């Protein structure tokens, strides 16, 4: 005989949800409601809490000053400080002038340095063609300057200025003799035509010892002034071939050694010369005066 028992375990608990629980569960399963509650509500609470905190102006000030302090303390760490400036490639007086005019008080944090603006400032100096700035290790602000080299002296109506080969002003000088090595140009608008002037001076080769300078006339053409008050009036267009022609004439016929005041090449295919008037009786005082005006 086999004995079998019927275990009477408690039936599985399967309680019915109340109507409210059922509806709430269904509501919770609604996607929009769920998204609102899970994302929208926390986001709202966070934003609201932050807004509530910052509604008080004292707290706003406290927070901003704290943030400012943190920022300053990081910026002013010795690793980030620039303590010295080294200028390279500039002559001593230019370097001194730059130092004096750079609007930066060293030492300064490298975060506070606007290198781009500083570069613009430096390149604003007439004597500076270009400037490169680097902050190097050890807190060194390294400035590499390429200076403009003066090519001409320009006597304008008001001052005596040095120009580079592009006609850009380099510096002013007090008197012509300070840079006697440079050729002289004069006249209004002469600085606009510096390359042409340089070409003419180069072409003047054999006449070079006699050249006093170039005069811009009417801001459009050049006069080559030689000693003995001789002038070569050059045309507006293509002055260099005209000058070469004069030089050729001089070579062939010794033109400029004669008593001629002007060689007029304004019409290039028809050179014209003006003869000097018969010489007045010699007046040594006037002669010295003239020598003083034309250095």
């Amino acid at each position, binding site marked *: 005989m086999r004995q079998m028992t019927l275990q009477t375990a408690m039936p599985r608990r399967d309680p019915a949800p109340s109507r409210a629980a*059922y*509806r709430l569960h269904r509501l919770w*399963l609604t996607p929009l409601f769920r998204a609102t509650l899970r994302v929208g509500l926390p986001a709202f609470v966070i934003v609201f809490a932050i807004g509530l905190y910052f509604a008080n102006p004292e707290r706003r000030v406290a927070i901003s000053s704290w943030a400012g302090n943190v920022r300053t303390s990081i910026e002013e760490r010795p690793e980030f400080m620039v303590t010295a400036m080294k200028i390279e490639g500039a002559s001593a007086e230019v370097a001194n002038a730059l130092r004096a005019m750079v609007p930066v008080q060293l030492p300064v944090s490298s975060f506070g340095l606007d290198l781009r603006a500083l570069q613009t400032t430096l390149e604003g100096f007439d004597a500076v063609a270009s400037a490169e700035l680097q902050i190097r290790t050890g807190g060194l602000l390294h400035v590499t300057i390429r200076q403009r080299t003066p090519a001409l002296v320009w006597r304008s109506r008001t001052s005596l200025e040095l120009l580079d080969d592009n006609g850009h002003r380099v510096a002013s000088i007090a008197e012509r003799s300070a840079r006697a090595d440079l050729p002289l140009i004069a006249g209004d608008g002469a600085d606009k035509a510096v390359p042409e002037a340089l070409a003419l001076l180069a072409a003047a080769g054999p006449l070079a010892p006699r050249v006093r300078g170039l005069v811009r006339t009417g801001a459009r053409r050049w006069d080559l002034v030689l000693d003995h008050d001789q002038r070569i009036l050059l045309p507006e267009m293509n002055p260099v071939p005209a000058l070469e022609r004069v030089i050729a004439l001089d070579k062939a016929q010794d033109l400029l050694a004669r008593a001629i005041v002007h060689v007029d090449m304004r019409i290039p295919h028809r050179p014209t010369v003006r003869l000097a008037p018969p010489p007045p009786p010699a007046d040594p005082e006037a002669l010295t005066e003239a020598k003083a005006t034309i250095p």
Partner: protein
Amino acid sequence: MTDLYQAQRAMRNMRKAAMQRGVVAILDVGSSKIACLVLRFDGPERAAEVDGVGPMAGQSSFRVIGAATTRSRGVRFGEIDAMQETERAVRTAVQAAQKMANVRVDHVIACFAGARPRSYGLAGDVDLQDQVVTGQDVARVLAACEVPDLGAGRDVLHAQPVNFALDHRTGLGDPRGQMGNRLACDMHLLTVDTTVIQNLLYCIKRCDLELAGIASSAYVSGISSLVEDEQELGAACIDMGGGATGLSIFIKKHMIYADSVRMGGEQVTSDISKGLQMPLGDAEKLKARFGGVVATGMDDREMIEIGGQSGDWEKDRRTVSRAELIGIIRPRVEEILEEVRARLDAAGFEHLPSQQIVLTGGASQIPGLDGLAAKILGQRVRLGRPLRVQGLPQAATGAAFASAVGLCLFAAHPQDEWWDFEIPAERYPARSIRRALKWFKENW
């Protein structure tokens, strides 16, 4: 008829809306358990491109994503008996299924077993207006079916056109576009008690759900348990539930008869409870663990302690032999099967070409039932289990879930019913715009 049309069409629209949303719940309101499945529809059917896979009739277009069962309370004989209790049970099942699916369902398709279903075979014929059968002609022939007096308080649950005949040709599935002079149709009409449907409707409405379809449990378990050739050649599905035993007869893939016997597994349980003087819960367990219908010599020697909590030693130490238990179960099962036999005879089941009988439902799991049923119902009896559908949990694949699974198939691919066809133009009100359009179509 128009009211019915509108109610059923509203349900069909609800079903379409549910399909668009992609989630629909299946609710099997049974006497012993309430099962809820949540289906997710993933758009059109992805037919497997494998040899030997025929048309799947929508079976691969959905997936079960939630399943829950709860002990039924308040349902007797497959009908709602206590509204509040049933509502709670439905809530429990729906909530658990929703929780598993993690999705909210708003539309539910329900089935029930009871409500005294009654089958009618209707026939109607019309002369065709022009030689070609159109949708309108189908509607007209359906409307021409002579509807018998259904009786007071009866409502149509299913009205499925079963067969169309065009002149002398019969057995047409879809006559549209064919040539002929006279169109006839046979229709199977299933009516149930109105109050039962209304109770169910009310109950589901109380749960904040909307009814997207309703079906007879006998019909849907036939869909899921009968294999294709059985449905084609003629078979009866007997769904032995807790409180009612449904039976449905299929031929040519259409249900032609459905009925229910108001007896089931709960009667067996109550017999055990009465006979052995023990609580119903214990009796149910006793039936499930040691039950059977064929006693052998071994069963006389198997003694079962049935116990009890009365405090009386004599009573609490009782034992019964398994043969005694079988002696209680068997007469009741025989009675149910004989009642089923009577219904089948009344329906003329013996005239079908194939007389396959498939037993399914929770009560069909009694060991030895197929042997007993073969003696009463005929030789061709087998035990049926529902079709496998995607995502169905292992716990819900048993015979007890035949109607739930069938309802899934019904939801995915419902059969065309009367209300799925066009409304015949004659039935519209006189000033209908449709009628004016029809006049335009015919005359211009």
